[in-house]
């Protein structure tokens, strides 16, 4: 068991930088998730940790010692690949045994470990089948088994569930969680699915274009997104973003206006911003409420009724699209004009810096969470 540190890690393929200056530290026994859109460099980071890819600059350390030049085999990590990558010409048993044979484990020990792993993952009944004869879920289990059987210091998962159908994905998510609880090893997990990240992680690292955007516990990221990117990435449906202007700055918050809409008061710290500065108002769909009587005008364009909840799509004013998530079922229909209100406690403000796509939050700690 060991802590893993990345110090200023950068990876270049030719002249393109795919991973830029990543710094982080993963604690022993932690379930650590990298999440980000595809192509952002998650796999590359994982593969550098595994020793499958060289590090262009910076250091990867285990317990303080750099392991940049250590071959993959000697790092004591095990990896589960997206496409399972079970050796197709070997049975599940042979797949599990292959790595142990390579490091010269004694036959009885190999057998013991395979039995144990098979019981843990419930793959005993198809140990002697080839991967081709297994279903997707069974293959996934076998692939995890191949990692578990090596008793590695750390598990690396690269989008292991993305080839499974949604139902199975949920089941496997829980199962991997159980295995983590049972074994207690460090697990490093890569996914592009924020839901997976939120549901499994102890801590999450959000990546964009090879750079770390924010590291933190799932709810930290949800409640206090460090910037507009993280805010948009975490949470489903996506956070709504509206262009706004600061109208008035008060001691406990900021009053902003969205053009053509009544002023909105947000519990946030304006920092160095002045009245009249443009900002982006972020509000989660759950924080918008449909009201009877007074409120902001909203024109419904479409609705999705899912039974337990419903989504309302529409326009606040011309050009300001909004998604509203409502508990239960709603009677509104397309074209209808309704009144809504925004919960000031669930509003976020982001800085609009021209030229920079990323918007920074005005206030790292919206007062709503401070109040909790």
């Amino acid at each position, binding site marked *: 068991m060991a802590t893993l540190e990345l110090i200023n890690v950068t990876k270049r393929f030719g002249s393109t930088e795919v991973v830029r200056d990543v710094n982080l530290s993963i604690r022993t026994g932690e379930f650590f998730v990298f999440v980000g859109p595809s192509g952002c460099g998650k796999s590359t980071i994982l593969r550098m940790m595994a020793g*499958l890819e060289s590090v262009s600059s910076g250091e990867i350390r285990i317990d303080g010692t750099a392991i940049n030049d250590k071959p*993959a*085999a000697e790092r004591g*990590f095990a990896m589960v*690949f997206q496409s399972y990558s079970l*050796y197709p010409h070997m049975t599940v048993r042979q797949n599990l045994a*292959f790595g142990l044979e390579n*490091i010269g484990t004694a036959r009885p020990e190999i057998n013991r470990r395979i039995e144990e792993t098979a019981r843990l993952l419930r793959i005993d009944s198809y140990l002697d089948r080839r991967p081709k004869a297994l279903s997707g879920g069974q293959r996934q289990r076998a692939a995890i088994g191949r990692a578990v059987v090596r008793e590695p210091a750390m598990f690396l998962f690269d989008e292991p569930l993305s080839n499974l159908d949604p139902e199975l994905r949920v089941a496997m998510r829980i199962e991997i969680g159980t295995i983590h609880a049972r074994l207690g090893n460090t697990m490093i997990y890569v996914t592009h699915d924020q839901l997976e990240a939120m549901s499994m992680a102890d801590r999450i690292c959000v990546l964009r274009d090879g750079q770390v955007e924010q590291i933190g516990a799932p709810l930290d990221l949800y409640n206090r997104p460090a910037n507009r990117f993280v805010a948009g990435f975490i949470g489903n449906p996506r956070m709504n973003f509206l262009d706004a202007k600061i109208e008035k700055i008060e001691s406990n918050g900021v009053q902003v206006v969205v053009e053509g809409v009544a002023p909105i008061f947000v519990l946030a710290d304006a920092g160095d911003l002045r009245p009249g500065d443009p900002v982006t108002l972020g509000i989660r769909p759950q924080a918008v409420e449909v009201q009877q009587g007074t409120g902001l005008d909203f024109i419904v364009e479409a609705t999705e009724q899912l039974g337990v909840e419903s989504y309302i799509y529409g326009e606040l004013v011309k050009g300001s699209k909004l998604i509203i998530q409502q508990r239960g079922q709603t009677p509104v229909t397309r074209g209808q004009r309704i009144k809504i209100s925004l919960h000031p406690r669930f509003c976020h403000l982001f800085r609009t810096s021209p030229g920079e796509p990323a918007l920074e939050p005005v206030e790292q700690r919206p007062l709503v969470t401070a109040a909790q």
Partner: protein
Amino acid sequence: MNSLLTFVSRRRGTHGSLHWTDWVSYAYLCLGTIAMLWPVAWLVLSSFKSEGQLQDFPASVMPYSQVKVDVAGMQDQLPLFNVKTTDGTVTQMVQIRRVGITAEMAFPNEPGRTIEVNIDQRQPVTETKFAWGNYRDLFHSSDFVGYAWNSIFITAMSTIIVLFVNSLAAFALSKYEFRGRSTAYVLSIATLMIPPTIVLVPLFLVVNQLGLLNTPWGIILPGAATPAGVFLLRQYMLTIPDDLLDAARLDAASEWKIYWRIVLPLAAPALAVLAVFAIVWRWNDFLWPLIVLTRDDQFTLQLALNSYQGEPQMQWSSILAMTVLTLLPIACVFTFLQRYIQTGIAETGIR
């Protein structure tokens, strides 16, 4: 016959009757079948005829032998003939003995009563019979066994080396990123443009300098690094996912082990295609062995056939049998592996 007609005239998959072009197609294919099959069939049939029968003109289609029957009171079986008697009828009689142009003949059931018959008046009664004599003689001649052994040794060795050397190169070219990889690949493929026919003289020097003249290795080694093989295997290995290799690396497998335990087994279909090609290439090789192997104890079957057929007092009976035996392994390979071969060729245009 009727059902055959309906079988043929029903098109695959569709119903409906035949267009005239279908009939023309079938006619063409039938002619083609005869043109392709007859020469080989004639060779095989002829190889079962004795040297005497091979001199027949016109020859009979099937190999035959004269019918002999038991006759009461005679120790040996006697040959049976159709005899044209003076009144023009034809009867079957056995020949007791022959004296000059007349033969002493008798009816099989009354051997005591003999008649003299002019030998022009009788025709031997024959039955189709395959004579294995030509083949037996071949196997009893130590020469043939030696040639066969040379051919087998060259083919087997060459195939193993081709598979090994080419698959290693293809592995490096398909599964590693390294500086100079594309140059290395282009260089390998460029040798496709150096057919042996244009480097005969200097290749002869090289083989001579290496002391390989009149040894099987003089054939095996120059043919071992086949660009076509590298190409074919590389194309196939590109389809093996890289993740599999990475998984093996994390499983502490050395690069050699990855090649030997992962890539090679997975490339088996392509290796099979290349193996078939390699077998056919070396087994059928002619020009280069003709130059390198000049001592006839080193001859391959192809060389032996060539030298036999060039001799003034050539014996077609043994040449024919030897030809059949030479094409037999290839025919077997073809029969069992033709799927592989045909898709291999269709996909790569190599042969």
